[in-house]
């Protein structure tokens, strides 16, 4: 907020010429203050009015120079966020439990298939009508966002919701099984929130092959949503790979000069991990068949029952985890990320950073930790060391020395995701909640940073940091939003970044899964706070402060309406999460506790060196697993 004042530094020279400065006196100001106070007081008593008030206030806050084409969407987004906070207020959520909406219909399928079917539909539109293509794409994405909002009305608790379990290939035990819990809920919403914004922002710079672009983005969104919602490992794998193709195309077609090399690198790295995971998935499915004596199954909750001895489990865990850590990415398999980010077009970078990387962290949380707790415990302490040294510290140090701004932000992602992974390795409720929150936070603040950098890239077509300097003067509004994104990335309290980091650090210190090193790792993660400030402030200083050194930068236009509309929701989300994190935390709390309980039940239930030591067998279903689909036989524990 402080830095909003930047926007009035000098960029309004043009504006003040035709806008007479309003000579406000004291009475007018008092009146405004009174009206504002009355609105706020009224809002606290009539909670239903809060979104409306928020929308009106935000619309009024937008500097007058902007027309209603900017104000209306921003106000709508503000109202939406306010409604989101009010409706999900922990106290209010308790009251709403009585009116738990019926979880019927195929809501999740609608969410997944709207973009994918829409992508196919796009193919039938004429290639020349750019307006129709763009409008349809954006409409479908907004529709997906609207579809995902009812998910918020369910009180998530510890269980899965909107369960949908249909036999797909019964002979191989493959079901189309989707459901949502308090963890995937936020990633689904993040996807539905970020994708339309990134898409809208891309409609300026992307001017060739519009149809292909729209197709790729819609397919990408559907794939990501499917990955987060799938609970059948086979379906999960299909979506996981489906994401790869549009991203490959996005970088390869609309990317920078070295795009082919980068896109191949991206593809090979991710593919390498994925194939091993496929092997492990097949092994699990058939092991299940052997243990149950029936058909194979790829259902997550059924496979969770498999008790696998160390010799097999380590390999399976390694295959899954390798796929995930490449996607995250963690040291030393992270180098595809800077290359992919630098060459990707802006929207590609945004989606890659904000959502695609979360597939890896989510995968580790759901599958590696859910299916192989013993192996996770055996290796967790060591991997946490990698997350701290190779992620948080090494990533930050590398980021500091980059001269390409996009590379720098990419390395900062490595550092930020180090926090997420550290939280997951620590396996305490606070750390995992912090980790999940940090996934969302990183999506918002780093997504915003990439979007912001795209703005200047469209004007200057260079990524070299020394090409900029003193930009605060020609582009004050841009500088303001960049500083907001920076403080969020640095983790200043009241922005979202702080909450995640704080919870991960305290949760890590309280962990008993990190061997001797929980204290050292918590302190190491705290060091990242210093390093984050060093590299991000370096960027801000070099880009925005000091005199304007380059002639080309002197007359750069400030944000245009399209850019402003796509950036403002990110800025608002930063403060909404920073101030009201409990809205998110209360929904994910139950799911995270379930994950930790499932994990600990396996670890503590096993004698000896914490591995189940015997022939493969099935344990009972976990208490919170959703009911089986009608077409599925029930297999009791240990039954032949």
């Amino acid at each position, binding site marked *: *907020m*402080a*830095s*909003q*004042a*930047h926007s009035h*530094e000098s960029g*309004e020279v043009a504006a003040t010429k035709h806008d007479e*400065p309003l*000579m*406000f*006196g*004291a009475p007018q100001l008092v009146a405004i*203050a009174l009206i504002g106070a009355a609105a706020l007081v009224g809002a606290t008593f009539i909670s239903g009015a809060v979104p409306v008030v928020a929308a009106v206030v935000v619309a009024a*806050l937008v500097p007058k120079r902007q027309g209603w084409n900017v104000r209306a969407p921003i106000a709508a987004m503000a109202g939406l966020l306010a409604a989101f906070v009010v409706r999900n207020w922990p106290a209010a959520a308790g009251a709403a439990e009585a009116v738990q909406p019926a979880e019927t219909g195929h809501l999740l399928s609608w969410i997944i298939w709207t973009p994918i079917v829409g992508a196919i539909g796009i193919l039938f539109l004429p290639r020349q009508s750019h307006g129709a293509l763009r409008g349809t794409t954006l409409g479908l994405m907004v529709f997906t966002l609207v579809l995902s909002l009812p998910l918020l009305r369910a009180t998530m608790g510890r269980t899965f919701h909107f369960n949908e379990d249909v036999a797909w290939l019964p002979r191989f035990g493959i079901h189309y099984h989707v459901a949502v819990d308090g963890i995937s809920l936020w990633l689904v919403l993040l996807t539905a929130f970020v994708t339309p914004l990134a898409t809208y922002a891309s409609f300026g710079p992307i001017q060739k092959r519009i149809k292909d672009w729209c197709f790729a983005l819609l397919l990408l969104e559907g794939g990501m949503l499917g990955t987060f919602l799938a609970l059948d490992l086979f379906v999960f794998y299909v979506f996981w790979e489906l994401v790869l193709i549009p991203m490959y195309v996005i970088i390869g077609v609309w990317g920078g000069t070295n795009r082919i090399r980068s896109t191949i690198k991206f593809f090979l790295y991710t593919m390498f991990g994925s194939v091993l995971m496929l092997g492990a998935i097949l092994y699990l499915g058939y092991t299940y068949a*052997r*243990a149950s*004596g029936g058909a194979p199954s790829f259902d997550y909750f059924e496979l969770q029952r498999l008790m696998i001895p160390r010799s097999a489990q380590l390999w399976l865990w390694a295959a899954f985890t390798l796929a995930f850590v490449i996607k995250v990415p963690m040291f030393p398999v992270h*180098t595809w990320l800077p290359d992919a980010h630098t060459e990707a077009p802006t929207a590609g970078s945004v989606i890659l950073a904000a959502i695609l990387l979360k597939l890896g962290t989510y995968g580790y949380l759901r599958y590696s930790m859910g299916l192989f707790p013993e192996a996770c415990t055996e290796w967790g302490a060591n991997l946490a060391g990698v997350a701290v040294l190779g992620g948080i510290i*090494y990533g930050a140090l*590398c980021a*500091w*020395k980059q001269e390409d701004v996009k590379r720098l932000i990419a390395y900062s992602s490595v550092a930020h995701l180090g926090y997420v992974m550290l939280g997951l390795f620590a396996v305490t409720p*606070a750390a995992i909640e912090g980790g999940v929150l940090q996934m969302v936070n990183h999506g918002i603040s780093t997504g915003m940073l990439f979007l912001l950098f795209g703005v200047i890239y469209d004007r200057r077509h260079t990524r070299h940091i020394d090409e900029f300097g*003193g930009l605060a003067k020609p582009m004050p509004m841009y500088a303001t939003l960049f500083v907001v994104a920076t*403080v969020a990335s640095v983790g*200043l*309290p009241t922005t979202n970044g702080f*909450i995640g980091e704080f919870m991960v650090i*305290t*949760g890590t210190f309280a*962990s*008993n899964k990190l*061997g*001797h*090193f929980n204290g050292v790792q*918590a302190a190491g993660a*705290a*060091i990242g*706070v*210093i390093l984050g*400030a060093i590299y991000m*402030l370096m960027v801000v*200083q070099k880009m925005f*402060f*000091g*005199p304007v050194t380059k002639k080309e930068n002197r007359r750069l236009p400030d944000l245009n309406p399209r850019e402003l509309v796509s950036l403002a929701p990110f800025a608002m989300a930063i403060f909404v999460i920073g101030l*009201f994190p*409990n809205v998110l935390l209360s929904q994910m709390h139950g799911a995270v506790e379930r994950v930790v309980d499932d994990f600990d039940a396996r670890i503590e239930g*096993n004698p*000896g060196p914490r591995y189940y030591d*015997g*022939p493969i*067998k099935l*344990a*009972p279903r976990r208490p919170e697993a959703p009911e089986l689909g009608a077409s599925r036989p029930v297999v009791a*524990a*240990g*039954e*032949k």
Partner: protein
Amino acid sequence: MLSLFPPNDYALIAVILGMPLLGAIVNGIWGKRLGNAAVRFMALAAVGVSFAASVVAFVALAAHVRQAEDASMDAHVKLSWTAWEWMHTAGGQGTGTVPIEIKFSIDQLSGVMMLVVTGVGFLIHLYATSYMEKDKGFARFFAYLNLFIFAMLVLILGDNLPLLFVGWEGVGLCSYLLIGFWYENMANAAAGKKAFIANRVGDFGLLCAMFLLVNYTGALDWSGMANGAHNLLHPNMTGPLSRVQLWPLGSGNVYPPGPLHFLNPKTPLTISAATAVSLALLLACTGKSAQIPLYVWLPDAMAGPTPVSALIHAATMVTAGVYLVCRMSFVFVLSPFAMMLVAIVGAATALLAATIAVVQNDIKKVLAYSTVSQLGFMFLGVGVGAFTAGFFHVFTHAFFKACLFLGAGSVIHAMHARVHADDEAQDIRNMGGLRKWLRLTHWTFAAATAAIIGLPLTSGFFSKDEILYRAFVDNPVNPEDGKGFLRKFGTFHIPPVVGPILYGVAVAAAVLTAFYMCRLYFLTFWGEFRGWTVGRPSLLAKQELAGTKHERDHALDAPHDTELEDADETHEHHEEDLSQPGYPPHESPWQMTVPLIVLAAFAVLAGWLNPGFHLPWQAMDHWLHPVFAPVSSAIQVRHANDHEWAERMEWPLALGGIGAFAVGTAVAWWMYIAKRGEPAKAIAQAQPALYQLVLDKWRVDELYDATAIAAVDSLAETSAAFDKSIVDGIIARLTSLVVAASGTILRAFQNGVVHVYAATMVVGLAATGWFFAVPHANATVVDAGNDDYVVTAAPGVGYAYRWDANSDGKPEKADFGADSTLKLHLEPGKSQTVRLEVKNAFGFVGKKSIFVAHPPAQTSSL
């Protein structure tokens, strides 16, 4: 009045906090459009209303305190207001979740601090409305300044450590933005960044303190932490002590036998959790309050506008560290070692900064180092357990240092009439004799100088004297000493020699303080004016005809009206020939002088709130007593807690402070008035190397550049290079090279020559044939429940099986059969080895032993 707001839902706090925030938002967003008059009104109204509400709250608090005293209850009263629950985290040794609320509270300590921040803040806002009048960024400036007041109030009023951290970082951000306010100058932006990063190093300490505290005490709010503080020493009276291991890193003997084993010392180096928390907090405080080793940012921070230096970098923000130590006193007293370190850091900083201030020539730099030095005195005070005395120095320092900075601003404002380069306008060598023209500024500056150098009966004398006295006699001891397991292990005791040494260092620093402040005062206000030739009116009239009219206009300008419009034309038309006669320096307008007068009055008189010397009225001591009562048992005096001895020592020890004042002032008088600065020049010429070293601030910045910063920098360079060459170069390239190489090799076989293909086919067929000719005995074991296990042999073409369930060499059936499975019954804990023989169609037999174990019964259900 009291019943309007109940103490546990004191919503007036929302007004105190909300007004500055509102001001920041309004000025930040609409500032340019509103015009300067409305911006000024908004900014002043925001802080003014906040101050008025603070006074109301303070009076209410006093009434509640009196009620509690009358009812002889705990007089540590809190007015608190909870906004909403912010988040929750793990705590209490992993046993529970700790909710963290957005909750603010006013108690005796935060109440005083709140009054100082809003009161002094209001005066400085008023001053700035005139000082910054001509600046392009007028609205932006007041938006930041209001935001700063908001953040500072959050810091003070926050009821838990994370919320304090919000304010802590918030003031840091505002400081960053305001130091770099004139961001077009790269040096200003760099100074802002330096301040932010130095503070971040401190924040690292605060984060560490938070996770330690929440884990050991199970809370992060003040009363919760105070209740659980004993857990920082021993979780229960009989159990093991709370120790934090420093070396080897980790806990226990972490390096397994092997090449790293030698790193394990015989006994690991551990400290108590209380010491660890205290040290982490101390690191945080050294960052925010500019103490050794992190003080280097504060002098550079003077790049900001002068009102900012007065408000943020003298009166309020930098004292946050002292406030934090007072607030967390219940942790610090558990670790006498950390207390001693706090005092040593404070005393060392006081002396070091004072030596640097002696030779500086920039008026703001002198005051900056003086601030660092005075903060050192405060840390010395709280470090020896004199929390009230240390905090009282915060209180008096806020007045006299704000007055000094604002006075300096007034002087710079006057100098800017003709001297436009910042460093020259602030150079005391260009001043002198200003008392003739800047009468109000001179008298207020003199009053504040009298206070800081400890002229008896002024505020600075009383507050500093108490610190010196307590430094000599106090002896903090561990209040848990001898309880529980601590009886066996003992606790740290501060060596008796420390007290006198601290006293001596502090007196030396006080002598230097008197000297450099008088030097500053004499050079600025006495002697001849050295800035430019002050001409006769007749000459001036001629000049005006000659077209130097704009010069007069500039005489009224704020120092920084340089055109931000276009970087091309900065400063050029400001070059002036200062040898030409010009108007004399002018006094500032009333908006600037009124705050000076008020602050000067407080600087002289505020000491009587807590004069010490066992006088009957000790308002501050009495007021703060409930806050520090719980820790008072830990603060003993030396000589086996002989209070009579301590009382006898009070008057003799006061001589040190008075003597320091007398000596410092006399030497300065002799040097700069009696001898007109000749001795100073002589000394500088006699010891040029030493003089240069001190002038360069002991080259500490350079030392840091060469060591810590260079180390991190090269580490980063190495990381980046490693990433590029090793990780990306070798790991990635090597993999692709292996793939490419195997492709090349395999390609050699795809040469299109038919008999090579035929040969390959023959080899392949032979291998396949061999595979089928040899039987493969393999089996898997499946737990079928009810202690039954099924061993299944792997199928194969034409296979027949023979089982030997107990491996006694006698198969169950003599002949090979088609039965590929074997059922076993095994009780828990039993195991069995099964022998499997497989015969294939060629009659070859393969054998394998399979070990089947039933794990013992498990306690927990699955």
